[in-house]
Structure formats: structure tokens, C-alpha cells
């Protein structure tokens, strides 16, 4: 049962070969390969800590079978931006103090990015709805919502720095 198979995934632009059985999730396979910026929380789709972009669309990697990622592109938080060339969302999270322990942050930013792509000018209610698949045990969410709205203004060219 469950023969191993080598799947080829492009992670943040680099080709990665993963030898995995059918029952391995993308989360397990990528963390095993060293991509520990993808966080493991509930492993049942509730918390969003494991969110990555798969061909540009956000998914919970704990619900995604590694075999289903064969030939596709994965973007983790490190592919969104790095120190030195951070994404506006990452900058906004730093500026507003939206990360405490930081465990939920990669997933929050992946989900927030998809939200801002669909809706560049979200209301507070839209932001709450957009992040409903992400749980944070530290911040109480207020600063996370602020960060997303700050990044949205920045991306619309309405930021103070613009």
C-alpha cells in the first residue's frame, strides 16, 4: 500500500523533489524538507497556520496531499518577501505590532494577500471575513486587522510614505 512517488514542486522559485507516499500532506513533506516557515497548528483546516499559495491560490497545506502538488508552484511566506525587500503586508505587520509569538503570521499574511488581491479596499468586516480561516492565540486580532488595512492603503498608493 501507498508506494512512494517523487513529486516535483517549485517552492519560491526553486525546484524541489519530494519522495513521499500518498498519505503525506504537503505540510509534512515540505517541513521535512526544511521549509519550516510553514507552520503546523491544528492539522484539520481550522487555524490557517499552514497556509501557502498553490499556483497563486491560498490553501491549507495540512489538507493538501503532497501528490496533488506535483508539477505546481508553492509560495511560502519567504517567497512573499524577505528582510530587505519585504512585502507591504509584512511591513505593515511589523509597523503595527501585529505579530506577538508570530506563529500565525505566515498564514495570516498568505490569507491577507489573497484578500487584497480580490478586494483592494476591504472594510473591517471584509478583513474579518477574509481572515476567518486563520486563528491567532496572542494578539486579539485588532492589530492584525489594522495591519491589513494599512497594507491595503499602501498598495492603493494612499500610504503616508507614498
Amino acid at each position, binding site marked *: 500500500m*501507498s508506494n512512494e512517488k517523487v513529486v516535483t514542486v517549485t517552492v519560491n522559485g526553486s525546484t524541489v523533489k519530494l519522495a513521499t507516499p500518498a498519505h503525506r500532506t504537503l505540510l509534512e513533506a515540505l517541513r521535512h524538507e526544511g521549509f519550516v516557515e510553514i507552520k503546523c497548528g491544528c492539522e484539520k*483546516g481550522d487555524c490557517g497556520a499552514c497556509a501557502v499559495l498553490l499556483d497563486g491560490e*491560498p490553501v491549507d497545506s495540512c*489538507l493538501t496531499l503532497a501528490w496533488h502538488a506535483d508539477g505546481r508552484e508553492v509560495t511560502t511566506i519567504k517567497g512573499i518577501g524577505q528582510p530587505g525587500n519585504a512585502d507591504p503586508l509584512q511591513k505593515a505587520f511589523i509597523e503595527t505590532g501585529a505579530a506577538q509569538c508570530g506563529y500565525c503570521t505566515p498564514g495570516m499574511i498568505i490569507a491577507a494577500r489573497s484578500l487584497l488581491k480580490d478586494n483592494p479596499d476591504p472594510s473591517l468586516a471584509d478583513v*474579518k*471575513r477574509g*481572515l476567518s*480561516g486563520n486563528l491567532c492565540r496572542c494578539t486579539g486580532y485588532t492589530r492584525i486587522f489594522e495591519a491589513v488595512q494599512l497594507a491595503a492603503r499602501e498598495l492603493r498608493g494612499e500610504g503616508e510614505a507614498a
Partner: protein
Amino acid sequence: MLPPFDLSQPQSLADALQALAGKGDTRPLAGATNLVPDLRGKRETCRDFVSLDGVNELRYIKRDGDRVTLGARTTMADILDDSGIRTDAPALYAAAEIFAGRMVRTAATIGGNVCCGSPSADTVPALLTVDAEVTLSSVSGQRTVALDEFYIDYKKSVLRSDELLTSVSWNVPPQNSANLFYKLARRKGDAITVTGVAVMIAAEDGVCTRARIALGSVAPTVFRASAAEDLLAGKALDEAIIEQAARAAADQCAPIDDIRASADYRLQTAFSLTRRLLTQAWKQVS
């Protein structure tokens, strides 16, 4: 860790049907958003799956005159991205909007939602109010079944083990109609439905020409409140008749107590939400 299982990855519908043929213990796997948690939670005992992930011919939204057809692999995100579903099935659009969180919506399919057979499957009440039909296919042919006749009991349906649900289709609602869905849950996003209600009301010359009421999470299956529908058809609606219909709908419920709500709360909310949605719908069409 998930328990070990086998997975075949056909790239066409024909190969997927072949993989299911003659093997009673092989099951389809689509977005896996039910199956992965169920495997991990040891609620799922199947160990041999046929993935529909590569079967792209099942991922489409088609229109032919008044008929709308969704391939089974169509995701909740696809439904929201489509420019037409909001008007072609407003309650379905509303259900997709409030469905899970953004990540799950990328993966969750309509076929998986219908076939999981859960009484809390949110697209089902909405689909019942547009008289949706499902097409079930196997190597030996295909049949079309009214969604209203698909479920037999809790998580039991007429789907055979060699069959795939391949599409869901319905006719766009009539001109002067309202089609609403309300999901009552512990919070507004990403929560399992406590009570779900969908209604469709069409009217002509001040008279209700079509009434559909479907309820979720208040019985072993999602169901149509047919006695309530019969009360409304052919009448000019008012507060009294709407109240009477909502009462009839609640009478048809058989809810349970669980960690999310008591049976009693479900009964009361089935009544009040049905009354509320019928009132709103009638206001929209009259």
C-alpha cells in the same frame, strides 16, 4: 500523520470511472477537505481512493439557455469568481460566500459537499431551492436524479460505489423571484452550521407562484419543507400565512442535541429563520 492509503490519479473522467468500477471499497477523493480530517480523526475507514484532482474536465460552469451546470470538481472559490452565479442561484452564491475560510474554499468542491451527505453541507439547502438535479456516472452509463431524491438517511445517498457525481444543474430562477440563504452558526465565518435555511419565492400578479424551503442541520439529512411550501403556493402571502408555513417547516424538523446547539434551539431557530427569510423574500417580489 494520516493512516497509509492508496491513491490513483487518473487524468480523465473515463479513467476515473474505470478506477471505481467493480471495486466496492474504493472511493473518490476531490478537495479532500472532508476526507483528510476524517482520515486523521479515524472517522474514515476507506484506504483506497481515486483522486479527482487531475480530472479537469469535471471543473466547469456552463450555461445553455436557462440551464446552469456545474462540474463536480468546481470549487467554492470558482463559484464566487464566476460572474453569473450571484444571479443564477443567489442562495448558492450566499452559501459559498460564508463557506469555511478562504483556504478551504480554494479546495472544497461542490461534488464533495453534496456527496459527503452531511446535514450541515451548506450548498445543499441552496441547491434544493432551485430544484437542482445531479448526474451520476459510471462505466455502465449515467443517470440524472433530483437532488431532493438523492439522500436516504444520515450520510446515506442513492450514489453507488462505482458511481461518481459528475455534475449539478438547475434552471435559473424566474424573473420575479427571491432566493435567499441564511446560515446560523457560532460566528460569521468558518463555522459549522447550527441551522441553515434557504428559500425561493416567485410571484406573479401578487400571488406566490413557486415556494421552496430547504433546511440544513435540523434533521439527519438536508430536506425540503414540502408541507410549508404547499401552504404558500397560489396565495398572496401575509404575516399569518408565513407564520403558519414557518411552523409547518419546524414541524418537519428532527434535530439533535450536539456541542453546537440543543435540539430545542435548532427547532426555534428553524421556525424563526424560515419566517424571517420568507418575509424578506416576499417583500422583494411584491
